[in-house]
């Protein structure tokens, strides 16, 4: 008897950067001109020269893109699918998709941010898929957002967060996942938040983030008791440290965001033309946003992250536009929307995230799961990549038999 036709046929994809692209990169690297640096600059002025020198040398001689491309292809089953977006035509969307052995595993969509990519799912994927009587299992989908990785970039102005959310939702539906849950940080937070607001209850059944940016719940009129409590209850040591870190980043770490939000093309010319320019721009974030006490980036790891941008289908300049469009549309506004999210919500706090509101600030409509990780446990902005075990642990608790989002997806609770 023949197998029934696959109701949701997919188009397999393998990354295959051409020789001419690789040799063009090599030609440019060979002509690299590096800037000077002040004596004892360290990290004060940005990416340090000795680091960048070392990375460029490695990129030129020794780093093999093809080796890491093959590893990605082996680990991450990838596909392409055309998704039509209202008013924007059809975009070819690149995504990772791997199913659990258990048919009623929980369908989960992972959404990356900037300067991340689909690669951020690589370590949590095997853990999420894993089946056990002790914890739920997941089917995992991780897309490259339009303009990132090997997805098409939008070709018209105005592709704001709601459009990214539309792509993600349509992708899940097209794979037969009428109900699903999401996990995301950085832009993944904004995109999944928009999905939760738009499709929450109907399609998106639960929502987890490691980058909670919400309006403060502390409001004299809306929550007077909370407000009074806030006035008298001092911050804990770790809350204060988190607030200090948040303030420090807000003050000193936000140059990149202003240019990406206002004149992305002006920046984009340099990032498109100069591999070392792109490398330095991204490297600074990888180091300063992660918990370098507990996670050590290898040079090849950094170069692979950056190469994904360099070899991306839409080019590095396209990836900046999400900032511009979201700003123009008011999508980065955090004062609305989170109150309206009524689906079960889970939050994980990692100590070296750069925006870390105290727990009492959280203003989500239905918060069912909060995980706070200690300094010792570690973890920063790229939680799925730096601390896959901790993040998956948090998801297993949230969706597990005693978790606040157990059974969120009808008939798919993740157990046999």
């Amino acid at each position, binding site marked *: 008897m023949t197998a029934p036709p696959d109701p949701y046929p997919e188009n397999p994809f393998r990354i295959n950067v051409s020789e001419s692209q690789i040799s*063009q990169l090599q*030609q*440019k690297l060979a*002509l*690299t*001109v*590096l*800037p*000077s*640096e*002040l*004596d*004892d*600059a360290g990290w*004060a*002025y*940005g*990416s340090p*020269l000795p680091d*960048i020198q070392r990375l460029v040398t490695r990129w030129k001689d020794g780093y093999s893109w093809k080796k890491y491309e093959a590893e990605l292809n082996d680990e991450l089953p990838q596909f392409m699918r055309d998704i039509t977006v209202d008013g924007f035509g059809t975009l070819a969307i690149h995504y990772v998709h791997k199913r659990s052995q258990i048919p009623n595993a929980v369908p989960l969509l992972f959404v990356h941010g900037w300067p991340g990519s689909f690669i951020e799912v690589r370590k949590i994927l095997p853990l999420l898929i894993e089946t056990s009587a002790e914890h739920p299992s997941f089917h995992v989908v991780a897309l490259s957002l339009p303009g990132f990785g090997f997805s098409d*970039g*939008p*070709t*018209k*102005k105005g592709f704001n967060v709601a459009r990214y959310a539309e792509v993600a939702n349509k992708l899940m539906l097209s794979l037969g996942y009428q109900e699903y849950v999401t996990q995301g940080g950085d832009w993944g937070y904004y995109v999944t938040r928009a999905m939760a607001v738009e499709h929450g209850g109907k399609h998106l059944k639960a929502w987890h983030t490691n980058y909670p940016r919400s309006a403060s719940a502390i409001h004299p009129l809306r929550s007077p008791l909370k407000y009074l409590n806030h006035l008298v209850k001092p911050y804990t040591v770790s809350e204060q440290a988190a607030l200090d870190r948040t303030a420090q980043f807000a003050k*000193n*770490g*936000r*140059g*990149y965001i*202003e*240019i990406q*939000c*206002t*004149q*992305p*093309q*002006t*920046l*984009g*010319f*340099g*990032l*498109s*033309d*100069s591999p*070392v*320019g*792109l*490398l*330095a*721009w991204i490297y*600074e974030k990888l180091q300063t946003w992660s918990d370098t006490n507990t996670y050590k980036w290898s040079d090849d790891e950094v170069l692979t992250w950056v190469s994904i941008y360099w070899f991306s289908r*839409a*080019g*590095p*300049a*396209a990836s900046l*536009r999400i900032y*511009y469009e979201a700003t123009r549309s008011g999508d980065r506004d955090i004062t609305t929307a989170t109150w309206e999210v009524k689906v079960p919500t889970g939050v994980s706090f990692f100590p070296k995230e750069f925006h870390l509101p105290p727990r009492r600030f959280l203003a989500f409509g239905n918060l069912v799961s909060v995980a706070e990780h200690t300094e010792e446990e570690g973890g920063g902005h790229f939680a799925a990549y730096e601390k896959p075990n901790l993040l998956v642990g948090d998801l297993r608790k949230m969706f597990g038999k005693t978790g606040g989002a157990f059974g969120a997806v009808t008939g798919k609770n993740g157990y046999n």
Partner: protein
Amino acid sequence: MPPLTPTISRETPFKIDLPDSQLSYLQKKLSLTTLPDELPESGLDYGVPLSDMQRLLARWSEGYDWRKHEAELNADLPQFTRGIDVAGFGTLEIHYVHKKSITNTLKQVLAFSGPGLFIEVRKILPLLVETSKDHPSFHVVALSLPGYGFSEAPRNKGFSLAQYAEVGHKLMLALGYDEYVTQGGDWGSLITRKMASLYGPKYHKAWHTNLPIRPLLFLSHIISSLPIPFLEYTPREKSGLENTLRYYTQGSAYFAVQSKEPQTLGYSLADSPSGLLAWIYDKLRRVSDNYPWDDDEVLTWVSLHLFSRAGPTAALRIYYEVVRSFPEGSSILTMEERTSIPVGHSYFPKEIISLPSRWFSSPYLVFESQHESGGHFAAYEKPVELVDDLRKMFGRGGGAFNVVSSSDGYLSPS
């Protein structure tokens, strides 16, 4: 003030003469340029338009003749270098333009900075040194700030306004001008204001700026000024405030990046002529007032940055150092700098920060003028108007007439 020691090295004439290897390196880079795509109808909204960049890059590769422009710069601008000692930073070799008028005249120093350069003095220079019985004449000195043009850059952290001021001041003394006046815009405005507070009135006798700024309580001072008292503002003042707000909300990202992560940005500017062109051209277009930039003009400005002695990254550090030097919670717009020498303001409507002139009140404000057009690069966009202002300010009947004791700027004794 302790006595200042004279500079330790002599003046050396200087001519720009880029090695052929640098020009051929540029050609090689240009031939490998990779451009981004662009969304249809982006205009200027997303940044520099692709079509402009394509045209400029094509010209830079073929047609643009650096040697021709190099020769013109050398012909128009008599240049020199000399070592200036800066306390805590050693000796920096400073590149400057120096041209004397034929009369006994006032002395002037002009400070410039990015993305402007010493080239900004080129149009006002002949007008300033011109002699006439009807207006004063000037000896002109225009330095390349450390890290710009052909001046050395500092090697250590912390080179801020006081240090730039020290360089300007010591240069004037080294040239024998122990009394001088200044004109400055952009960073030149803050630097000459610092000079005024440090070296006036003994040495620095008067200063003029086309970017007048004064302490505001905070940015929202501007925002809060707009609604209710708005009705009291003239259309011109309102437009100036709107310009200022637009600059702060949409047009100052370059400032944020350069003042927070200059090195991170600097790799792409040093490595990609296309990237550098885009970064600078964005400013040239955005903050000037319908100035008809010629492609070769733009390319000459950008080439001077690309081939500057310290490289394009060094020019960014002034943003970082000055912002970091302010006490916690203060900024360029909130820092007070008391000066007690005559000051003159010229207002050009498309300047990035355009505050109402009546927000400035000082017993030392001796000259003001309002212009109907002109933007950030006043000396370059509106040379005649700017020099006219200076002639009025320093001329007979002007508020700063005869501030320099040894001469008044006229051919015959007044």
